[in-house]
């Protein structure tokens, strides 16, 4: 059973962003089920991530519960091979082991944005961390077609002086895009007395494309922001769906506090490995040091790709097969950057 929770890596695949409402999180879980083509049962955590918090706050942890509701196994990272061993110990061996390829999963690609990315250059966000924001939700109000992603550097989070990133990212669930004939996105910040901001208002540049989906981003300098005071942000924008442009005005409250459920956006936390590093990472599992890899010597993600690289189907990845796997994994990671 899978438990769906907040995104660990927003914007990484399919440009997904953190949902603001339970309906959006449920839509995410339904999309995840489609993408994986799975028929496994799923649970969806509440928007405050209470089950994740109650169980150690890890993005990919795994628990086995016995029939009395007692925890009998736990691990920080899911490991299908280890779970199989757990179940053999707890329940018994199966006559025929089901392999991933036996499931013939009907996987589908992630949701795409409804317009090309356009030509606005992204703001680099290395070293920034998400901070807590509260969107002011109104059940009769407009959808949050664009969602604020707010990040800060450690000096701002710790001492109230530093960089503040504001990014308005279109949510692919709502199929909206920017149109250059509409007014650019505008924001306004209202801060407590004494807080110094390098700008209290801003207007996004326009893309040269007629329609685009690039986030509208701003980087501000902030000084003297007390930890116990919030900043209010109001944003106005036109989000265009297939047949209509929606003029939207929405408000957020920003807190100078790290959002532990915010996840790390791709440019902030990911490092692409070189080919040599990727090869070393694969060979790190080579327990007997023979320079070859059997499936059990790989991690769960690598195991799911094992058959793609075992070209001679002998159940072992030899040097040339490991090299090909490393090349393709490196190329795949680079394409996501």
């Amino acid at each position, binding site marked *: 059973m899978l*438990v769906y*929770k907040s995104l660990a890596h927003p914007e990484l*695949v399919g440009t997904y962003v953190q949902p603001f409402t339970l309906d959006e999180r*449920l839509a995410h879980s339904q999309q995840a089920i489609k993408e994986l083509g799975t028929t496994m049962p799923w649970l969806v955590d509440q928007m405050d991530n209470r089950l994740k918090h109650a169980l150690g706050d*890890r993005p990919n942890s795994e628990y086995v519960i016995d029939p009395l509701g007692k925890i009998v196994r736990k691990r920080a990272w899911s490991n299908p091979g280890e779970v199989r061993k757990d179940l053999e110990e707890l329940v018994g061996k199966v006559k025929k082991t089901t392999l991933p390829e036996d499931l013939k999963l009907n996987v589908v690609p992630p949701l795409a944005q409804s317009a090309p990315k356009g030509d606005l250059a992204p703001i680099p966000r290395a070293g920034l961390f998400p901070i807590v924001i509260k969107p002011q939700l109104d059940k009769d109000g407009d959808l949050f077609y664009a969602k604020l992603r707010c990040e800060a550097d450690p000096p701002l989070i710790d001492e109230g002086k530093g960089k503040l990133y504001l990014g308005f990212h279109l949510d692919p669930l709502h199929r909206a895009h920017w149109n250059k004939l509409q007014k650019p996105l505008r924001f306004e910040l209202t801060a407590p007395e004494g807080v110094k901001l390098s700008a209290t208002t801003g207007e996004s540049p326009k893309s040269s494309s007629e329609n685009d989906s690039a986030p509208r981003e701003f980087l501000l300098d902030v000084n003297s922001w007390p930890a116990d005071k919030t900043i209010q942000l109001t944003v106005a924008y036109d989000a265009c769906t297939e047949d209509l442009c929606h003029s939207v005005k929405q408000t957020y409250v920003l807190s100078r506090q790290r959002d532990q459920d915010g996840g790390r956006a791709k440019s902030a936390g990911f490092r692409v490995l070189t080919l*040599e590093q990727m090869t070393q*990472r694969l060979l790190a599992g080579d327990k007997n040091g023979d320079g070859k890899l059997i499936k059990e010597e790989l991690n769960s993600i690598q195991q799911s790709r094992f058959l793609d690289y075992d070209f001679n189907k002998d159940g072992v990845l030899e040097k040339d097969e490991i090299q090909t796997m490393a090349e393709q994994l490196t190329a795949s990671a680079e394409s996501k950057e």
Partner: protein
Amino acid sequence: MVPGVVFAQQKKKASEEDFVKEKPAVGDPFPDLVVYDPKGQEVKTSSLRGHYTVLTFGCLT
């Protein structure tokens, strides 16, 4: 081996060991909370009793 890879492996091992020691530990009751199924129907985690259940956390990205 690349130093960064060794460091990452050591960190992961330490993280796993810390996690296993944290509450709730093996032998503790699974927390009784309300969550949802993907259609939005409430589900109590206590309803998982009666058989062995594997629960894995995940998300789209």
